[in-house]
C-alpha cells in the first residue's frame, strides 16, 4: 500500500514538474483545478464503462445459467428417452471409516464407466453429495449391473469388492442408487436401490 502510495506520489511529482515548466505563467491553483477535473472526469468515465461491463457480464452469466439448465433437460430427453434410459448414482454414508479410491461399473458384462476419485470429490460425497456415475440407454428386459469398488477400509485394509445386481428395465426411466455405508466389518456395506 505504502509502496504504491509512494509510487503515485512520484508520478504526480514528475507530471507536476513537467507541466509547471511548460505552462510557467498559469497559476498553480488553476493548474491543480485543471488536473483534478481531468482526473475526475477520466475516472468517472472509466468507472461507468467498468460498471457497464460488469452489468453486461452479470446478465450474460445469468442467461448462460438459464440456457444451460434448459439445454441439459433437452439433451437428456433427446439422448436418453425414458423407455431406454438408465442412470446410476453413487452416495456415501460413512464417517471416513474407509476411503473410496475408484469404481468400475459394468452393465451386462460390458464396462459402462470407470471413475477415479479425487480428495475433493470424496469429501463432497461424505458431506451428502450424490454423484451421477453413468447415464445411458438399454433395452427393455432383464439386465445385470456389476460394480467393482476399490478403496481402503478400516485398519488401512485395501479392498476390491465386486457386487452384482439384477434389474428389469421397463418403458419407464430406470434410476439405480449405489450406496456405500459403514459396517461392523473392515469393509463397508454396498447397497443397490432401484427407483422406477
Amino acid at each position, binding site marked *: 500500500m505504502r509502496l504504491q502510495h509512494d509510487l503515485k506520489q512520484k508520478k504526480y511529482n514528475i507530471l507536476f514538474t513537467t507541466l509547471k515548466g511548460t505552462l510557467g505563467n498559469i497559476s498553480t491553483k488553476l493548474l491543480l483545478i485543471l488536473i483534478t477535473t481531468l482526473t475526475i472526469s477520466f475516472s468517472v468515465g472509466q468507472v461507468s464503462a467498468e460498471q457497464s461491463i460488469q452489468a453486461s457480464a452479470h446478465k450474460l452469466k445469468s442467461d*448462460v445459467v438459464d440456457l444451460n439448465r434448459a439445454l441439459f433437460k433437452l*439433451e437428456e430427453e433427446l439422448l436418453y428417452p425414458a423407455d431406454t434410459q438408465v442412470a446410476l448414482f453413487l452416495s456415501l454414508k460413512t464417517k471416513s471409516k474407509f476411503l473410496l479410491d475408484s469404481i468400475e461399473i459394468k452393465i451386462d458384462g460390458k464396462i459402462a464407466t470407470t471413475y477415479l476419485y479425487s480428495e475433493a470429490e470424496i469429501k463432497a460425497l461424505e458431506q451428502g453429495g450424490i454423484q451421477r456415475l453413468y447415464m445411458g440407454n438399454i433395452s427393455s428386459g432383464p439386465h445385470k449391473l456389476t460394480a467393482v469398488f476399490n478403496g481402503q477400509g478400516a485398519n488401512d485394509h485395501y479392498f476390491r469388492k465386486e457386487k452384482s445386481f439384477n434389474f428389469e428395465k421397463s418403458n419407464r426411466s430406470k434410476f439405480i442408487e449405489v450406496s456405500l455405508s459403514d459396517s461392523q466389518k473392515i469393509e463397508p456395506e454396498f447397497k443397490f436401490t432401484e427407483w422406477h
Partner: protein
Amino acid sequence: MIRHSLSNFPRNLLVVGVTFLFLTVLMPSFCIAKERQEPLPAHIAKGLMLFELYKGDYFDAIIRSPDTTTEQLTLDLAHSLSEFGLNDQAGQFYDQLQSTGTAESKSIAYFQLGKAAYNRGEWTKALDWFNKPKSQLSKDMLSELHYYQANAYIKLKQYTKAAAILGKMKEGAWASYAYYNLGIAYSEIDSEPTRAIISLRVADALNTNKVASLAELKDQTLLAAGYLSIQAEDYEKALSFLNQVRVDSDLASKALYMHGVANSSQERYRAAIQSWYRVKKYPLINPGVADAFLAIPFAYDKEGYSSKSISSYLEAISVFDKESRNIDIIIAAVLKNGARSTFFGKSALDDIEWFLSDSIATNTPKVAYLKYIMSDSQLHQLAKQSIELAFLDENLSLWEHNLSVYDEMLKQRISGYYQRIKKADTSSRAKRINNISNEASKLKISLATAEQTQDVLSVAAGRTLRRLESVKELDKTLLKIKKDISPREFDDLKQRIKRLDGLVMWEASEQYERNLRLTQETLRVLDKEVERYKKGLEKFEGLIAKGPVKLESFKKRVSNFKKKIIAKKQELNVVRKQQDKALTEQVITVLQAKKIEFVAHHETAQQRLAHLYEYVAMVQHSNKQRAANRSKQKKASRGGAK
C-alpha cells in the same frame, strides 16, 4: 371350388399374420412416443446439486439445482449463486429467507446480506446486518462473520470496536487475516508502530499455516512486522521477523532487501551486500529487486570500495535501461494483441531476451510480470472477470458444437423416417389386406351354398378328404389291373372299395355339423382380424401422414436453442472486446507506472554515479596534490640540509 378355397384357408391366415407382424413391428418406430422423462427422486436431485456445491463447482451446482425447493436448498442455491457472482439473484433468496426463514436460515441470510453490502463498500449497512441477532451459525461461518464485522469497523476507523470483536475469535485463517488487517490499519494511523507490530505478531501466532494461502499470509505478516520494526529502528527484531519469510515466497525478494536494509542501518554493510546480492537473482519486477540494485553500490561506497561501487552502478544502469526497453516491448505487445492474449496466450513476451538468465525463480519473467500485474486489485478483478467471460465463451461454444451435432442427427433421422415410409409401401399392404378380405367373402358364400346343399365334403376335415382321395386312387388302380385279374377277384375288390368309400362318406357326414361350426367360427375370426388389420393400417397411415412429429419438435427446439446460443455468443464477444479493452488500458497504466519507476531508478543511478566519479576525481586530485606537496616539501628539506 369350395373345397379348393377352404383348403387354402390356413395359407391366407399366414399372409394376414405376416402383415400384422409387419405392422406391429414397424409401427412403434413411427408412432409418437408417449414416454416422458421421469423426474429424479427428490433426495437424488438434491444430492447431485450438493456434490457440485461441495466440490466448489458453483456453476454446475446452479444448473443441477432441483426445481422443488426446501429452505436448505434455497440456502444452498443462494450460496452457489453468490459464489458464481450472481449476487443479485442470491440477494433475492437471502432477502426472502431473512423474513420467512427459520432462526438458523435467518442468521445465515443476515450474514450473507451483510457480506454483500460489505463487498459493495457499504460499511454501515453491512454492520447493520452483521449486528442482527444470530443463532446456530456454524463455527466456520461465525469466524467469517467476525472477520467481516471487524473489517467493517476498521473501514469506519472504529478500531476499538474492531479489536473487541477480534478478541472473540479463535485460532484460524479468518482470525489471522483479521489481525493482519488491524495491524496494517494501526500502522497507517500510529506514529509509533508498537501497536501494529503486536497485532501482526498475534496474526502470526493465530496462523495455523496449514495451507498455501495461510503460508503466504504468514510471509506477508512477517514482512510487514519487519518493515515496521525497521521504521521503529529495532533492527534485531526486524531481522528476526524477516529471517522467517520463506525463500520460495513471492515476497522473498522484498524480505531479503529489507534484511539488507536492517543490516546496513546498523552499518553492517558486508552483511547487507550479501542479502542484496541474493535479491539480484529474482526478476527485476519483483518487489525490492530494483532497490537492491541501487543499494549495493551505496553499501560498497560506504565500505570504501569505490571501484566496486562504480561497476555496480554501471550494472544497475544497464539493468534498468534494459528493463525499461523490455517494458516498452511488453506495452507494444499488449497494445497490439490486448492484455488477455499477451499474458494468457502465446505472445511476443515469450521471445523477449530477459536479462536474468540465471534466475533462481522457478517461473519465467513473463510470470513475474503477470504476478506483478495481478497484485493490482483493480486488475485482479478485471482478470477474474476476463476468466469468467472466457468460461462462458467455452461453455457456449461447446453447446453450439453439441447442438450442431444433434441438429444433423435429427435431420438424418427425419430423412431416414421418410425413406422407411417409402419402403413400407402401405398401399400394397392395403391391397393385400383387401384381397384377403375378398377371399374371405368368397369363402363365406361357398360355405353358405355348402350348407344349403348339405355338401358334407365341403367342410370335411383334411384327413377325411385325403382318405377319400386314396379310395379314388384305389378305384382307378383297380380299373387298370382289371384285365390281369379274374372277374371274381375284381368284383370282390370293387365291393371292398365301395365299402371304404361308404365309410369315408359316413365319417364326413358324421363330422359335418362339427366341421361346419368350426369353419364358420374360423371365418368369423378371420373377418375380425381382417377388420382389425384394416383399422391398424388406417391408423398407421394417419400417423405417417402427420410426419415424424416428435423428431420435428426436437429439431425445432434444437434449432431455436442453436440460434439463442449464437446470439448469446455474439453478445458475449462484444462484452469480451470491451472487457479486454478495459483490461488492456489498466495493464498499460500499471506498466507505464512501473516504467516511470525504472526510469527514475535509472536517473538516480546515473546521478549517484556522476557524484561518485566527481568524488573519486576530487579524491584523486587531492591525493595528487598532497603527493606533489609532499615531494616539494621533501625537496625543500633536502635543499635546506645541503
